[in-house]
Protein backbone atom coordinates (compact mmCIF):
# COMPACT_ATOMS: atom_id res chain seq x y z
CA UNK A 1 0.00 0.00 0.00
CA UNK A 2 1.37 3.38 -1.04
CA UNK A 3 -0.42 6.40 0.27
CA UNK A 4 0.37 9.91 1.41
CA UNK A 5 -0.77 9.28 4.95
CA UNK A 6 0.64 8.96 8.43
CA UNK A 7 -1.04 6.16 10.34
CA UNK A 8 -3.94 4.31 8.62
CA UNK A 9 -6.10 4.96 11.66
CA UNK A 10 -5.41 8.71 11.55
CA UNK A 11 -6.33 9.36 7.92
CA UNK A 12 -9.71 10.93 8.57
CA UNK A 13 -8.55 13.08 11.47
CA UNK A 14 -5.47 14.22 9.54
CA UNK A 15 -7.45 15.09 6.43
CA UNK A 16 -9.86 17.14 8.53
CA UNK A 17 -6.89 19.02 10.01
CA UNK A 18 -5.80 19.73 6.46
CA UNK A 19 -9.24 20.96 5.48
CA UNK A 20 -9.38 23.20 8.51
CA UNK A 21 -6.00 24.68 7.66
CA UNK A 22 -6.85 25.11 3.98
CA UNK A 23 -10.26 26.71 4.40
CA UNK A 24 -10.26 28.94 7.46
CA UNK A 25 -13.35 31.11 7.62
CA UNK A 26 -15.25 29.18 5.01
CA UNK A 27 -15.38 26.05 7.16
CA UNK A 28 -15.42 25.38 10.87
CA UNK A 29 -14.45 21.88 11.84
CA UNK A 30 -15.54 20.02 14.93
CA UNK A 31 -12.59 17.66 15.17
CA UNK A 32 -13.98 15.68 18.06
CA UNK A 33 -17.19 14.83 16.27
CA UNK A 34 -15.62 14.93 12.82
CA UNK A 35 -18.10 17.38 11.42
CA UNK A 36 -17.35 19.96 8.75
CA UNK A 37 -19.56 22.98 9.39
CA UNK A 38 -20.17 25.97 7.24
CA UNK A 39 -18.26 28.79 8.94
CA UNK A 40 -21.41 30.78 9.73
CA UNK A 41 -23.66 27.88 10.74
CA UNK A 42 -26.40 27.89 11.93
CA UNK A 43 -27.93 30.30 9.43
CA UNK A 44 -31.06 31.66 11.04
CA UNK A 45 -34.28 31.03 9.15
CA UNK A 46 -32.64 28.78 6.56
CA UNK A 47 -33.28 25.08 6.20
CA UNK A 48 -30.11 23.31 7.30
CA UNK A 49 -28.63 20.67 5.01
CA UNK A 50 -26.72 17.82 6.60
CA UNK A 51 -25.07 15.01 4.76
CA UNK A 52 -22.24 12.67 5.45
CA UNK A 53 -21.00 9.21 4.86
CA UNK A 54 -17.86 7.20 4.95
CA UNK A 55 -14.65 9.06 4.22
CA UNK A 56 -12.60 8.27 1.12
CA UNK A 57 -14.99 9.98 -1.31
CA UNK A 58 -13.51 13.47 -1.13
CA UNK A 59 -14.47 16.18 -1.98
CA UNK A 60 -17.82 14.58 -1.09
CA UNK A 61 -19.20 15.53 1.42
CA UNK A 62 -16.99 17.88 3.46
CA UNK A 63 -15.84 19.66 0.30
CA UNK A 64 -19.43 20.57 -0.47
CA UNK A 65 -20.00 22.52 2.71
CA UNK A 66 -20.47 26.23 2.29
CA UNK A 67 -22.94 28.87 1.14
CA UNK A 68 -25.27 27.47 -1.49
CA UNK A 69 -24.69 23.84 -0.63
CA UNK A 70 -24.37 21.89 2.64
CA UNK A 71 -24.41 23.33 6.15
CA UNK A 72 -22.62 20.35 7.63
CA UNK A 73 -21.07 17.06 6.62
CA UNK A 74 -20.30 14.17 8.94
CA UNK A 75 -17.12 12.29 8.12
CA UNK A 76 -17.25 8.60 8.97
CA UNK A 77 -14.28 6.29 9.04
CA UNK A 78 -13.06 5.31 5.58
CA UNK A 79 -16.01 3.71 3.75
CA UNK A 80 -17.97 3.47 7.00
CA UNK A 81 -21.03 5.60 7.51
CA UNK A 82 -20.88 8.14 10.33
CA UNK A 83 -22.37 7.27 13.68
CA UNK A 84 -25.65 8.70 15.00
CA UNK A 85 -23.89 10.95 17.53
CA UNK A 86 -22.18 12.79 14.70
CA UNK A 87 -25.37 13.27 12.75
CA UNK A 88 -27.14 14.43 15.90
CA UNK A 89 -24.47 17.01 16.66
CA UNK A 90 -24.42 18.19 13.05
CA UNK A 91 -28.19 18.53 13.00
CA UNK A 92 -28.21 20.54 16.18
CA UNK A 93 -25.35 22.68 14.93
CA UNK A 94 -27.09 23.74 11.72
CA UNK A 95 -30.58 24.17 13.11
CA UNK A 96 -31.52 27.74 12.25
CA UNK A 97 -35.17 27.25 13.15
CA UNK A 98 -36.40 26.17 9.73
CA UNK A 99 -35.77 22.47 10.06
CA UNK A 100 -33.01 20.23 8.79
CA UNK A 101 -32.74 18.04 5.70
CA UNK A 102 -30.69 14.86 5.94
CA UNK A 103 -29.23 13.79 2.62
CA UNK A 104 -28.47 10.11 2.90
CA UNK A 105 -26.98 7.77 0.32
CA UNK A 106 -28.81 4.48 0.18
CA UNK A 107 -26.51 2.06 1.94
CA UNK A 108 -27.72 -0.08 4.83
CA UNK A 109 -25.26 1.50 7.23
CA UNK A 110 -25.91 5.08 6.21
CA UNK A 111 -29.66 4.67 6.32
CA UNK A 112 -29.64 3.03 9.76
CA UNK A 113 -27.22 5.50 11.34
CA UNK A 114 -29.12 8.52 9.99
CA UNK A 115 -32.39 6.93 11.14
CA UNK A 116 -31.05 6.44 14.66
CA UNK A 117 -29.80 10.02 14.64
CA UNK A 118 -33.21 11.31 13.56
CA UNK A 119 -34.80 9.33 16.39
CA UNK A 120 -32.35 10.93 18.80
CA UNK A 121 -33.06 14.43 17.44
CA UNK A 122 -36.78 13.88 17.89
CA UNK A 123 -36.24 12.59 21.41
CA UNK A 124 -33.97 15.46 22.38
CA UNK A 125 -35.42 18.54 20.71
CA UNK A 126 -38.18 19.94 18.59
CA UNK A 127 -36.05 20.22 15.45
CA UNK A 128 -37.92 19.01 12.41
CA UNK A 129 -35.85 16.57 10.37
CA UNK A 130 -36.68 15.16 6.95
CA UNK A 131 -34.44 12.58 5.34
CA UNK A 132 -34.05 12.16 1.61
CA UNK A 133 -32.32 9.01 0.43
CA UNK A 134 -30.50 8.94 -2.90
CA UNK A 135 -30.55 5.73 -4.91
CA UNK A 136 -29.50 6.44 -8.46
CA UNK A 137 -27.10 3.62 -9.28
CA UNK A 138 -28.57 1.54 -12.10
CA UNK A 139 -25.85 -1.08 -11.64
CA UNK A 140 -27.93 -2.45 -8.80
CA UNK A 141 -31.37 -3.91 -9.32
CA UNK A 142 -33.98 -2.11 -7.32
CA UNK A 143 -35.88 -5.13 -6.08
CA UNK A 144 -36.89 -6.92 -2.93
CA UNK A 145 -33.82 -9.04 -3.41
CA UNK A 146 -31.29 -6.29 -2.83
CA UNK A 147 -30.71 -3.47 -0.39
CA UNK A 148 -31.96 -1.27 -3.23
CA UNK A 149 -29.98 0.96 -5.51
CA UNK A 150 -26.95 2.71 -4.15
CA UNK A 151 -26.75 6.47 -3.85
CA UNK A 152 -23.94 7.75 -6.03
CA UNK A 153 -23.38 10.69 -8.42
CA UNK A 154 -26.83 12.21 -8.09
CA UNK A 155 -25.99 12.95 -4.46
CA UNK A 156 -23.51 15.63 -5.54
CA UNK A 157 -26.02 17.26 -7.87
CA UNK A 158 -28.77 17.04 -5.27
CA UNK A 159 -26.62 18.67 -2.62
CA UNK A 160 -25.95 21.58 -4.97
CA UNK A 161 -29.53 22.02 -6.10
CA UNK A 162 -31.18 21.56 -2.71
CA UNK A 163 -28.50 23.81 -1.24
CA UNK A 164 -29.44 26.57 -3.65
CA UNK A 165 -33.14 26.15 -2.83
CA UNK A 166 -32.43 26.33 0.89
CA UNK A 167 -30.29 29.40 0.35
CA UNK A 168 -33.26 31.05 -1.41
CA UNK A 169 -35.28 30.54 1.76
CA UNK A 170 -37.55 27.77 0.50
CA UNK A 171 -39.23 25.86 3.35
CA UNK A 172 -38.17 22.37 4.43
CA UNK A 173 -41.03 20.52 2.78
CA UNK A 174 -40.31 22.19 -0.52
CA UNK A 175 -36.56 21.60 -0.33
CA UNK A 176 -37.20 17.95 0.52
CA UNK A 177 -39.66 17.56 -2.38
CA UNK A 178 -37.15 19.12 -4.72
CA UNK A 179 -34.47 16.78 -3.45
CA UNK A 180 -36.71 13.79 -4.08
CA UNK A 181 -37.43 15.07 -7.58
CA UNK A 182 -33.73 15.34 -8.27
CA UNK A 183 -33.17 11.82 -7.06
CA UNK A 184 -36.07 10.50 -9.11
CA UNK A 185 -34.75 12.16 -12.25
CA UNK A 186 -31.15 11.05 -12.00
CA UNK A 187 -29.38 7.81 -12.88
CA UNK A 188 -25.75 6.77 -12.61
CA UNK A 189 -23.42 3.92 -13.46
CA UNK A 190 -19.75 3.42 -12.68
CA UNK A 191 -16.78 1.30 -13.67
CA UNK A 192 -13.32 0.61 -12.34
CA UNK A 193 -9.97 -0.09 -13.94
CA UNK A 194 -8.29 -0.78 -10.61
CA UNK A 195 -9.34 -1.48 -7.06
CA UNK A 196 -8.92 0.93 -4.20
CA UNK A 197 -7.07 0.07 -1.01
CA UNK A 198 -8.75 0.76 2.31
CA UNK A 199 -5.93 2.15 4.52
CA UNK A 200 -6.76 -0.06 7.49
CA UNK A 201 -7.00 -3.14 5.27
CA UNK A 202 -3.64 -2.35 3.68
CA UNK A 203 -4.22 -4.14 0.40
CA UNK A 204 -6.51 -3.80 -2.61
CA UNK A 205 -10.13 -4.71 -1.92
CA UNK A 206 -10.25 -6.78 -5.08
CA UNK A 207 -7.82 -8.06 -7.66
CA UNK A 208 -8.32 -6.67 -11.12
CA UNK A 209 -5.77 -8.13 -13.50
CA UNK A 210 -4.25 -6.15 -16.36
CA UNK A 211 -6.69 -6.30 -19.24
CA UNK A 212 -9.86 -6.48 -17.16
CA UNK A 213 -12.27 -3.97 -15.71
CA UNK A 214 -15.31 -4.04 -13.44
CA UNK A 215 -18.59 -2.66 -14.72
CA UNK A 216 -21.14 -1.46 -12.21
CA UNK A 217 -18.67 -1.03 -9.40
CA UNK A 218 -19.64 0.75 -6.20
CA UNK A 219 -17.82 3.69 -4.64
CA UNK A 220 -16.62 1.62 -1.68
CA UNK A 221 -14.69 -0.84 -3.73
CA UNK A 222 -17.65 -3.17 -3.77
CA UNK A 223 -17.00 -5.32 -6.81
CA UNK A 224 -19.27 -4.63 -9.77
CA UNK A 225 -21.87 -6.71 -11.49
CA UNK A 226 -19.56 -8.11 -14.10
CA UNK A 227 -15.96 -8.23 -15.15
CA UNK A 228 -15.11 -7.67 -18.81
CA UNK A 229 -12.02 -7.06 -20.90
CA UNK A 230 -10.75 -3.49 -20.92
CA UNK A 231 -12.37 -1.61 -23.80
CA UNK A 232 -11.87 1.75 -25.53
CA UNK A 233 -13.45 4.82 -23.92
CA UNK A 234 -16.09 4.84 -26.65
CA UNK A 235 -17.34 1.39 -25.66
CA UNK A 236 -17.08 2.10 -21.95
CA UNK A 237 -19.28 5.15 -22.46
CA UNK A 238 -21.82 2.91 -24.22
CA UNK A 239 -21.73 0.36 -21.40
CA UNK A 240 -22.39 3.03 -18.81
CA UNK A 241 -24.97 5.06 -20.71
CA UNK A 242 -26.99 2.22 -22.14
CA UNK A 243 -28.54 1.12 -18.81
CA UNK A 244 -28.97 4.74 -17.74
CA UNK A 245 -30.84 5.67 -20.89
CA UNK A 246 -32.87 2.46 -20.69
CA UNK A 247 -33.94 3.05 -17.12
CA UNK A 248 -35.39 6.51 -17.32
CA UNK A 249 -36.91 8.16 -20.32
CA UNK A 250 -34.27 10.71 -21.24
CA UNK A 251 -36.26 11.43 -24.37
CA UNK A 252 -35.48 13.60 -27.35
CA UNK A 253 -35.52 17.22 -26.37
CA UNK A 254 -35.05 16.56 -22.66
CA UNK A 255 -32.40 18.70 -21.10
CA UNK A 256 -29.94 16.86 -18.92
CA UNK A 257 -27.09 17.69 -16.66
CA UNK A 258 -24.34 15.30 -17.77
CA UNK A 259 -21.77 14.46 -15.13
CA UNK A 260 -18.61 12.46 -15.74
CA UNK A 261 -17.02 11.73 -12.40
CA UNK A 262 -13.53 10.43 -11.68
CA UNK A 263 -13.08 7.85 -8.95
CA UNK A 264 -9.86 9.26 -7.52
CA UNK A 265 -7.02 7.65 -9.46
CA UNK A 266 -8.10 8.74 -12.91
CA UNK A 267 -6.60 11.95 -14.27
CA UNK A 268 -8.66 14.73 -15.81
CA UNK A 269 -7.39 14.09 -19.34
CA UNK A 270 -9.11 10.70 -19.29
CA UNK A 271 -12.30 12.17 -17.89
CA UNK A 272 -12.42 14.60 -20.80
CA UNK A 273 -11.88 11.72 -23.22
CA UNK A 274 -14.83 9.98 -21.57
CA UNK A 275 -16.92 13.13 -21.66
CA UNK A 276 -16.32 13.48 -25.39
CA UNK A 277 -17.78 10.00 -25.90
CA UNK A 278 -20.68 10.60 -23.54
CA UNK A 279 -21.56 13.85 -25.29
CA UNK A 280 -21.41 12.12 -28.68
CA UNK A 281 -23.78 9.36 -27.57
CA UNK A 282 -26.20 11.87 -26.07
CA UNK A 283 -26.17 13.87 -29.26
CA UNK A 284 -26.94 10.75 -31.31
CA UNK A 285 -29.74 9.91 -28.86
CA UNK A 286 -31.31 13.33 -29.20
CA UNK A 287 -30.70 14.21 -25.57
CA UNK A 288 -29.78 17.86 -25.06
CA UNK A 289 -27.04 18.65 -22.59
CA UNK A 290 -28.15 21.68 -20.60
CA UNK A 291 -25.21 21.64 -18.21
CA UNK A 292 -22.18 19.46 -17.65
CA UNK A 293 -19.73 18.63 -14.91
CA UNK A 294 -16.43 16.84 -15.47
CA UNK A 295 -14.09 16.07 -12.61
CA UNK A 296 -13.45 13.95 -9.54
CA UNK A 297 -16.23 14.90 -7.15
CA UNK A 298 -17.20 11.57 -5.60
CA UNK A 299 -14.17 9.40 -5.34
CA UNK A 300 -13.37 5.97 -4.06
CA UNK A 301 -9.91 6.52 -2.60
CA UNK A 302 -7.35 5.96 -5.37
CA UNK A 303 -9.55 3.78 -7.54
CA UNK A 304 -9.06 4.34 -11.28
CA UNK A 305 -12.32 4.54 -13.13
CA UNK A 306 -15.29 6.78 -13.60
CA UNK A 307 -19.01 7.06 -13.30
CA UNK A 308 -21.54 8.77 -15.47
CA UNK A 309 -24.64 10.48 -14.13
CA UNK A 310 -27.50 11.97 -16.09
CA UNK A 311 -30.02 14.21 -14.42
CA UNK A 312 -33.10 15.37 -16.25
CA UNK A 313 -33.43 19.09 -15.59
CA UNK A 314 -36.10 21.71 -16.13
CA UNK A 315 -35.60 25.46 -15.98
CA UNK A 316 -35.99 25.61 -12.21
CA UNK A 317 -33.33 22.95 -11.70
CA UNK A 318 -30.97 24.66 -14.14
CA UNK A 319 -31.43 27.98 -12.34
CA UNK A 320 -30.74 26.33 -9.01
CA UNK A 321 -27.69 24.58 -10.47
CA UNK A 322 -26.41 27.92 -11.77
CA UNK A 323 -27.01 29.73 -8.48
CA UNK A 324 -23.90 30.88 -6.61
CA UNK A 325 -22.07 28.28 -4.59
CA UNK A 326 -18.97 28.62 -2.51
CA UNK A 327 -17.48 25.41 -1.23
CA UNK A 328 -13.99 23.93 -1.50
CA UNK A 329 -15.22 21.47 -4.12
CA UNK A 330 -17.70 23.43 -6.20
CA UNK A 331 -17.60 27.15 -6.60
CA UNK A 332 -19.05 29.71 -8.91
CA UNK A 333 -20.93 32.97 -8.98
CA UNK A 334 -19.22 34.19 -5.82
Amino acid at each position, binding site marked *: MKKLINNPSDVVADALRGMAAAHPGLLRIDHENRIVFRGDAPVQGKVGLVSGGGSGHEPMHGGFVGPGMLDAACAG*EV*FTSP*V*PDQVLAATQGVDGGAGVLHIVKNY*TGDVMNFEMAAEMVTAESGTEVVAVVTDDDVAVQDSLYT*AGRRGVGVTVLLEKIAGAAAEQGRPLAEVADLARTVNANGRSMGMALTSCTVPAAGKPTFDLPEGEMEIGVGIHG*EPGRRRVPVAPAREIAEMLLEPILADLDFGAGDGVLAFVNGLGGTPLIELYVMYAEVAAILERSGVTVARSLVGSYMTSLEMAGCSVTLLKVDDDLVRLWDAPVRTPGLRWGV
Partner: protein
Amino acid sequence: MAAELDVDRLQAWVREFARTVADHRDELTELDSAIGDADHGTNMDRGLSAAVAALDAGPPADPAALLKQVGMTLVSKVGGASGPLYGTFFLRMAGAGGSGPWDPAAFATALRAGLDGVIARGKAEPGDKTMLDALAPACDALDAAVAAGEPFGTALAAAVDAGRRGRDATVPMQARKGRASYLGERSVGHQDPGATSTVLLLEAAASTLAVPQD
Protein backbone atom coordinates in the same frame (compact mmCIF):
# COMPACT_ATOMS: atom_id res chain seq x y z
CA MET B 1 -27.37 -25.24 40.51
CA ALA B 2 -28.12 -22.90 37.63
CA ALA B 3 -25.33 -20.63 36.51
CA GLU B 4 -25.53 -17.12 37.85
CA LEU B 5 -24.67 -14.52 35.28
CA ASP B 6 -23.50 -11.49 37.14
CA VAL B 7 -21.95 -8.35 35.76
CA ASP B 8 -18.42 -9.75 36.01
CA ARG B 9 -19.26 -12.80 33.99
CA LEU B 10 -21.02 -10.76 31.30
CA GLN B 11 -18.09 -8.42 31.28
CA ALA B 12 -15.82 -11.39 30.67
CA TRP B 13 -18.03 -12.30 27.72
CA VAL B 14 -17.71 -8.87 26.14
CA ARG B 15 -13.97 -8.81 26.73
CA GLU B 16 -13.54 -12.25 25.21
CA PHE B 17 -15.65 -11.22 22.20
CA ALA B 18 -13.43 -8.15 21.81
CA ARG B 19 -10.31 -10.27 22.08
CA THR B 20 -11.36 -12.80 19.46
CA VAL B 21 -12.59 -10.11 17.10
CA ALA B 22 -9.19 -8.44 17.39
CA ASP B 23 -7.57 -11.80 16.67
CA HIS B 24 -9.79 -12.33 13.63
CA ARG B 25 -9.84 -8.74 12.47
CA ASP B 26 -7.98 -9.32 9.24
CA GLU B 27 -10.02 -12.41 8.44
CA LEU B 28 -13.28 -10.49 8.91
CA THR B 29 -12.01 -7.67 6.72
CA GLU B 30 -10.86 -10.15 4.13
CA LEU B 31 -14.31 -11.73 3.99
CA ASP B 32 -15.78 -8.23 3.63
CA SER B 33 -13.36 -7.49 0.77
CA ALA B 34 -14.84 -10.28 -1.27
CA ILE B 35 -18.47 -9.16 -1.06
CA GLY B 36 -18.37 -5.79 0.66
CA ASP B 37 -16.07 -2.90 1.38
CA ALA B 38 -13.24 -4.37 3.38
CA ASP B 39 -14.00 -2.85 6.75
CA HIS B 40 -15.96 -5.29 8.89
CA GLY B 41 -12.97 -6.41 10.94
CA THR B 42 -11.75 -2.86 11.40
CA ASN B 43 -15.22 -1.65 12.32
CA MET B 44 -15.89 -4.33 14.92
CA ASP B 45 -12.43 -4.08 16.39
CA ARG B 46 -12.66 -0.30 16.71
CA GLY B 47 -16.02 -0.53 18.45
CA LEU B 48 -15.14 -3.38 20.77
CA SER B 49 -11.81 -1.83 21.74
CA ALA B 50 -13.73 1.28 22.73
CA ALA B 51 -16.22 -0.84 24.66
CA VAL B 52 -13.39 -2.55 26.54
CA ALA B 53 -11.73 0.81 27.22
CA ALA B 54 -14.99 2.03 28.73
CA LEU B 55 -15.16 -1.09 30.88
CA ASP B 56 -11.59 -0.51 32.01
CA ALA B 57 -12.54 2.98 33.06
CA GLY B 58 -15.03 1.57 35.52
CA PRO B 59 -17.50 -1.22 34.90
CA PRO B 60 -21.23 -0.60 35.33
CA ALA B 61 -23.06 -2.00 38.31
CA ASP B 62 -25.32 -4.64 36.81
CA PRO B 63 -25.79 -6.72 33.64
CA ALA B 64 -28.34 -4.35 32.11
CA ALA B 65 -26.15 -1.30 32.69
CA LEU B 66 -23.16 -3.17 31.35
CA LEU B 67 -24.77 -4.27 28.12
CA LYS B 68 -26.37 -0.88 27.64
CA GLN B 69 -22.98 0.76 27.88
CA VAL B 70 -21.54 -1.72 25.40
CA GLY B 71 -24.44 -1.13 22.99
CA MET B 72 -24.14 2.65 23.23
CA THR B 73 -20.41 2.46 22.66
CA LEU B 74 -20.86 0.29 19.58
CA VAL B 75 -23.51 2.66 18.20
CA SER B 76 -21.18 5.62 18.77
CA LYS B 77 -17.96 4.08 17.54
CA VAL B 78 -18.65 1.58 14.80
CA GLY B 79 -20.82 3.17 12.14
CA GLY B 80 -21.62 1.28 8.95
CA ALA B 81 -24.18 -1.52 9.09
CA SER B 82 -22.64 -3.40 11.96
CA GLY B 83 -22.65 -0.42 14.36
CA PRO B 84 -26.40 0.04 14.56
CA LEU B 85 -27.00 -3.71 14.35
CA TYR B 86 -24.61 -4.90 17.04
CA GLY B 87 -25.38 -1.76 19.04
CA THR B 88 -29.10 -2.41 18.91
CA PHE B 89 -28.45 -6.05 19.76
CA PHE B 90 -26.73 -5.18 23.04
CA LEU B 91 -29.15 -2.37 23.88
CA ARG B 92 -32.14 -4.69 23.45
CA MET B 93 -30.45 -7.41 25.48
CA ALA B 94 -29.90 -4.86 28.22
CA GLY B 95 -33.55 -3.82 28.13
CA ALA B 96 -34.88 -7.37 28.24
CA GLY B 97 -32.79 -9.10 30.85
CA GLY B 98 -33.48 -7.08 33.96
CA SER B 99 -30.89 -5.56 36.29
CA GLY B 100 -30.20 -8.38 38.76
CA PRO B 101 -27.90 -11.32 37.98
CA TRP B 102 -29.38 -13.38 35.15
CA ASP B 103 -30.13 -17.04 35.01
CA PRO B 104 -29.79 -18.99 31.76
CA ALA B 105 -33.46 -18.42 30.91
CA ALA B 106 -33.04 -14.68 31.36
CA PHE B 107 -29.99 -14.79 29.14
CA ALA B 108 -31.89 -16.70 26.44
CA THR B 109 -34.71 -14.20 26.63
CA ALA B 110 -32.29 -11.31 26.38
CA LEU B 111 -30.50 -12.90 23.44
CA ARG B 112 -33.79 -13.27 21.58
CA ALA B 113 -34.64 -9.66 22.34
CA GLY B 114 -31.29 -8.74 20.82
CA LEU B 115 -32.10 -10.82 17.76
CA ASP B 116 -35.49 -9.11 17.43
CA GLY B 117 -33.74 -5.76 17.67
CA VAL B 118 -31.41 -6.69 14.80
CA ILE B 119 -34.41 -7.74 12.73
CA ALA B 120 -36.33 -4.56 13.56
CA ARG B 121 -33.35 -2.34 12.72
CA GLY B 122 -32.08 -4.16 9.63
CA LYS B 123 -35.30 -5.60 8.22
CA ALA B 124 -33.55 -8.73 7.05
CA GLU B 125 -34.77 -12.29 7.36
CA PRO B 126 -32.90 -15.55 7.73
CA GLY B 127 -31.67 -16.59 4.30
CA ASP B 128 -30.65 -13.05 3.30
CA LYS B 129 -26.99 -13.87 3.98
CA THR B 130 -26.45 -11.69 7.04
CA MET B 131 -25.51 -12.04 10.68
CA LEU B 132 -29.08 -13.20 11.26
CA ASP B 133 -28.24 -16.49 9.62
CA ALA B 134 -25.96 -17.27 12.53
CA LEU B 135 -27.84 -15.47 15.28
CA ALA B 136 -31.36 -16.77 14.65
CA PRO B 137 -30.56 -20.50 14.70
CA ALA B 138 -28.33 -19.94 17.73
CA CYS B 139 -31.25 -18.35 19.59
CA ASP B 140 -33.50 -21.22 18.63
CA ALA B 141 -30.99 -23.81 19.81
CA LEU B 142 -30.38 -21.99 23.07
CA ASP B 143 -34.10 -21.63 23.79
CA ALA B 144 -34.70 -25.31 23.10
CA ALA B 145 -31.81 -26.47 25.25
CA VAL B 146 -32.67 -24.17 28.14
CA ALA B 147 -36.32 -25.22 27.94
CA ALA B 148 -35.19 -28.87 27.99
CA GLY B 149 -33.31 -28.11 31.20
CA GLU B 150 -29.88 -28.76 29.72
CA PRO B 151 -26.91 -27.45 31.69
CA PHE B 152 -26.07 -23.91 30.52
CA GLY B 153 -22.70 -25.00 29.14
CA THR B 154 -24.40 -27.61 26.99
CA ALA B 155 -27.03 -25.13 25.92
CA LEU B 156 -24.41 -22.59 24.88
CA ALA B 157 -22.47 -25.26 23.02
CA ALA B 158 -25.64 -26.09 21.11
CA ALA B 159 -26.08 -22.41 20.28
CA VAL B 160 -22.50 -22.21 19.01
CA ASP B 161 -23.03 -25.30 16.89
CA ALA B 162 -26.19 -23.90 15.39
CA GLY B 163 -24.52 -20.55 14.79
CA ARG B 164 -21.58 -22.17 13.04
CA ARG B 165 -23.89 -24.19 10.81
CA GLY B 166 -25.84 -21.02 10.03
CA ARG B 167 -22.63 -19.15 9.26
CA ASP B 168 -21.44 -21.94 6.96
CA ALA B 169 -24.84 -21.96 5.28
CA THR B 170 -24.31 -18.34 4.19
CA VAL B 171 -21.63 -19.48 1.75
CA PRO B 172 -23.96 -20.76 -0.98
CA MET B 173 -26.57 -18.04 -0.38
CA GLN B 174 -27.16 -15.08 -2.67
CA ALA B 175 -27.25 -11.95 -0.54
CA ARG B 176 -30.48 -10.01 -0.39
CA LYS B 177 -29.56 -7.43 2.24
CA GLY B 178 -26.58 -5.22 2.94
CA ARG B 179 -23.74 -4.38 0.67
CA ALA B 180 -23.26 -7.94 -0.59
CA SER B 181 -26.67 -7.80 -2.26
CA TYR B 182 -25.23 -5.40 -4.88
CA LEU B 183 -23.23 -8.31 -6.19
CA GLY B 184 -26.28 -10.37 -7.10
CA GLU B 185 -25.15 -13.85 -8.12
CA ARG B 186 -21.53 -12.96 -7.54
CA SER B 187 -22.23 -12.97 -3.80
CA VAL B 188 -22.68 -16.73 -3.95
CA GLY B 189 -19.72 -18.77 -2.72
CA HIS B 190 -18.55 -16.35 -0.03
CA GLN B 191 -19.08 -16.51 3.72
CA ASP B 192 -20.87 -13.54 5.25
CA PRO B 193 -18.58 -11.42 7.44
CA GLY B 194 -21.35 -10.46 9.89
CA ALA B 195 -22.35 -14.09 10.40
CA THR B 196 -18.70 -14.82 11.02
CA SER B 197 -18.36 -12.18 13.74
CA THR B 198 -21.61 -13.39 15.26
CA VAL B 199 -20.12 -16.85 15.70
CA LEU B 200 -17.24 -15.20 17.58
CA LEU B 201 -19.85 -13.61 19.85
CA LEU B 202 -21.44 -17.00 20.50
CA GLU B 203 -18.13 -18.76 21.02
CA ALA B 204 -17.14 -16.07 23.50
CA ALA B 205 -20.39 -16.72 25.36
CA ALA B 206 -19.72 -20.44 25.51
CA SER B 207 -16.19 -19.97 26.81
CA THR B 208 -17.01 -17.34 29.45
CA LEU B 209 -20.62 -17.73 30.60
CA ALA B 210 -20.84 -21.42 31.40
CA VAL B 211 -19.49 -21.96 34.92
CA PRO B 212 -17.50 -25.11 35.57
CA GLN B 213 -20.02 -26.54 38.02
CA ASP B 214 -22.81 -26.63 35.36
